């Protein structure tokens, strides 16, 4: 068995393990074993991948493997990775690992919660390793549906409404993706579902591309929080339990950006060139509008959800620039945003678990009460607003650098507009930190609260190490991504 197939296989085994485990102790044992195994495997994969590249393997996808699944439709179970997917797999493994610890204190229906959680990770890992349109789409939907129950059963607030809204909107997106995939498959002569082979054929007529490109881009864009299809995101994130918010904002929203890049733009290159301007406008709105919306929210999770809309908008914005630097920045931004938003949601969950409120008007002076959590919150905030030395800076710098290098007025103007989001981000982050962490604590109940426990510290520290690692030594990661972005970008221009 190929090493890549282990990634979806381990969560499946974890589900079996959970099914037979009888108490919380055993459940935790299964989850920690599985999640550590995934994390170890993901780190090993990075080294294997870099080693193979260093040995001179130049083909676009490495570690490939495939076997025929449904012959009449040329459907194969085909796997393979390039630098982009390796980065995404590493991100997913980190978030699954930390998410497990962040939900350590879960009390109701622990077993079921982790079962759905594992199913979600099956979908996520499967999506990133697939190079076959059908399998990719299948895993995509596998990742979506557990959200309904995870939010609906274990969520807070208006959970039923949010869960239904999120599921239906994302499924609407996936309906568009499905018809787009059929369009690509039959447009390319109905001989293969393999992404690299379809790209090599390069025979989809331009008129058809112009129909399918917007459909697929919007389909994936719904998950990537593309304006105006982002409305599920704030409600969904606010209602979801901590680990689910982490996984959803951290990894699942990246499925959108990855899909837009890998399927919509790579397989429909001519349409991507001609129609990208429409989506550039929409994503610019996402970026700025998300940031402004975050400024006026009073719920911690809503603030972070709108901030996610803004940052994920930046991912789509960058890939639409159709050049190597910006696209590398987009992948870096996916990584960076995944890590820091997971950190944010983890911290918010921990604070909420203690104070039982997420309303910033009722929180103040937390720095004295829970110094560890507060310092970490500051670090997350600084990463979010792009402080050099943390991951956000690297990603945004690369994106704006790449975007501004596109040599025409339209692109430069939208880049300048999108750049303002950095300033607005600083406004809401600093306001938030000043409000809830500093000052004097007004609520006497809050004075009795305690700081983080070991499981929470572990989750938070792992994330911070990853964020700082990416920020301080970005080159190895950005080189890996850069090499893999090149074939896609050059395919679009040829």
């Amino acid at each position, binding site marked *: 068995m190929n090493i890549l197939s282990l990634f979806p296989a381990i969560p499946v085994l974890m589900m079996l393990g959970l099914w037979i485990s009888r108490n919380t102790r055993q459940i935790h044992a299964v989850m920690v074993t599985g999640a550590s195994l995934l994390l170890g495997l993901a780190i090993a994969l990075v080294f294997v991948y870099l080693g193979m590249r260093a040995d001179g393997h130049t083909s676009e996808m490495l570690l490939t493997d495939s076997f025929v*699944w*449904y*012959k*009449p*439709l040329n459907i194969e179970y085909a796997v393979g990775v390039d630098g982009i997917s390796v980065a995404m797999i590493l991100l997913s493994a980190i978030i699954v690992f930390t998410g497990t610890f962040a939900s350590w204190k879960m009390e109701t229906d622990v077993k079921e919660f982790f079962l759905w959680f594992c199913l979600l990770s099956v979908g996520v890992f499967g999506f990133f390793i697939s190079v076959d349109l*059908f399998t990719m789409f*299948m*895993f995509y*939907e*596998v990742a979506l*549906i557990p959200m*309904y*129950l995870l939010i*609906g*059963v274990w969520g807070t607030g208006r*959970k*039923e409404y949010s869960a*239904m809204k999120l*599921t*239906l909107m994302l*499924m*609407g997106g996936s*309906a*568009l993706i*499905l*018809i787009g995939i*059929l*369009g690509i*498959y*039959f447009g390319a002569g*109905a001989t293969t579902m393999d992404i690299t082979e379809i790209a090599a054929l390069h025979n989809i007529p331009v008129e058809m591309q112009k129909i399918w490109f917007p459909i697929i881009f919007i389909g994936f864009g719904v998950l990537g929080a593309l304006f105006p299809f982002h409305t599920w995101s704030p409600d969904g994130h606010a209602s979801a339990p901590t680990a689910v918010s982490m996984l959803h904002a951290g990894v699942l929203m990246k499925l959108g950006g990855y899909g837009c890049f890998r399927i919509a733009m790579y397989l429909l290159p001519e349409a991507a060139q001609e129609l990208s301007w429409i989506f550039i406008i929409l994503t610019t709105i996402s970026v700025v509008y998300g940031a402004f919306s975050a400024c006026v929210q009073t719920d911690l999770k809503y603030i972070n959800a709108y901030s996610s809309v803004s940052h994920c908008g930046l991912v789509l914005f960058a890939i639409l620039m159709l050049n190597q630097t910006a696209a590398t920045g987009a992948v870096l931004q996916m990584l960076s945003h995944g890590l820091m938003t997971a950190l944010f949601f983890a911290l918010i969950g921990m604070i909420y678990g203690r104070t039982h409120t997420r309303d910033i008007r009722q929180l103040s002076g937390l720095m004295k009460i829970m110094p560890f959590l507060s310092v970490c919150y500051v670090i997350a905030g600084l990463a979010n607003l792009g402080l050099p030395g943390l991951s956000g800076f690297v990603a945004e710098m690369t994106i704006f650098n790449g975007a501004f290098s596109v040599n025409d007025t339209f692109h430069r103007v939208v880049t300048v507009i999108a750049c303002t989001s950095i300033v607005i981000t600083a406004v809401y982050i600093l306001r938030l930190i000043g409000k809830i962490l500093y000052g004097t604590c007004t609520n006497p109940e809050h004075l009795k609260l305690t700081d983080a426990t070991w499981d929470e510290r572990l989750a938070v520290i792992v994330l911070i190490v990853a964020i700082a690692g990416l920020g301080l030594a970005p080159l190895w990661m950005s080189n890996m991504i850069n090499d893999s972005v090149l074939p896609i970008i050059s395919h679009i221009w040829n």
Partner: protein
Amino acid sequence: MDYSAIFSYMYTEIALVGVIVAALVYDLAAGKKGRQAFHGVMCALLLLFIAGTVYPYHKETAEVFGGMYVYNPVYGIVKSILAIGTLIVFLQSDTWIRKEDTEFKRGEFYVLTLSTLLGMDFMISAGHFMMFFIGLELASVPMACLVAFDKYKHNSAEAGAKYILSALFASGLMLYGISFLYGTAGTLYFDDMVAGINGSALQIMALVFFFTGLGFKISLVPFHLWTADTYEGAPTSVTSYLSVVSKAAAAFSLMIILMKVFGPMSEYWQTLLYIVIVLSITIANLFAIRQKNLKRFLAFSSISQAGYIMLAVISGTPYGMTSLIFYVLVYMVANLAAFGVISAVEQNSGGKVGMDDYNGLYRTNPKLTVIMTLALFSLAGIPPFAGFFSKFFIFAAAFEQGFHVLVLIALLNTIISLYYYLLVVKAMFITPNDSPIPAFRSDNSTRLSLLLCLAGIMALGIVSSVFDGINLYAFGM
């Protein structure tokens, strides 16, 4: 007459008649102890029948009775699928049929159900409109008796009356259509008739009348008005039989006749189907949202599913036929699982079938709830369950023939359908309830049937050999 050919090609029907006769004799001859074992004996007989007929003994097409009866390996596969569905229904019916007011006529239940199955087999294998019509009637008339089986219940009797009246009306229309065909083409044999089909006005009328007759059996909009009432009133086991087996047989024979007889008029029936599909899927979905009774709810869901099945018919390709059969199989296991749970809950809770009754079911009956959830996910087309694969294949079949907009409409409708399927999931998992249906243990044969369905839901999509096996024999226009 060559009797050996009859036996070698009509083995399914002959064996089925054998089972029916055995059931009749057993019903008469069995003593008190024997009647206790009736259920087991019938299931075993049916299992034996399936095991003996599931393998296509001949790989070629053949005709018996001068072309009245046609043998084809694909027909054999479909008949086996129908028989498996019947077996699952039998397994689920035990608790209900053992009740006092139905116990004494359980023999009738088995005989009538198997007679309708025999009718459907003839319908599928027909090579002549007379044969087809006899098969159709054999499938309809005993069905009305089954619907009214709980005749002391007001609902059931009303449902039976509604069913038989609508069925007769539809049959009448169909016969009228067939008479037009006979008048214009001069024959009733499918193979000979193609030469006389030219799309004249009279033949278009014939097509519409014929389609109406079968549209009633498949319960497509606008011929669906009987469906909800009948499904609600009929005993749950009969409803599940009606919603899968009967529907599947009619859909498949519709595809055969449209391709074989109306092949030259394909543009007319494709237009017709186009409209009917859009109506069926959309209207049924919108009505399903409002339902509070789970049997009515599944009635509307099955109407919309019928619309999806027609997506495979409209393509008219071999691949379309494969995806139709596969869809029907997957739909069957999922729908029977859902009805199995409903039936178990109904029998063990004193007849509760309302959606509100299911609130908080997960707390008391987790296993049934999970099966119901997976069945609904499969119906909604969520991977990795079989329904996702079957939906993808029918969409691909229709898309291949250029029905892009139609596929898009159908796809957008899957979101509506997901919404109402999730409403049930929400009731069972999320909505709190102070007095949920208490925990109970359903009987062993129901558990076995649910296990079978569950295995189907989980495995049919991931294991591709079923699809490949069907694809080997499928044919197109």
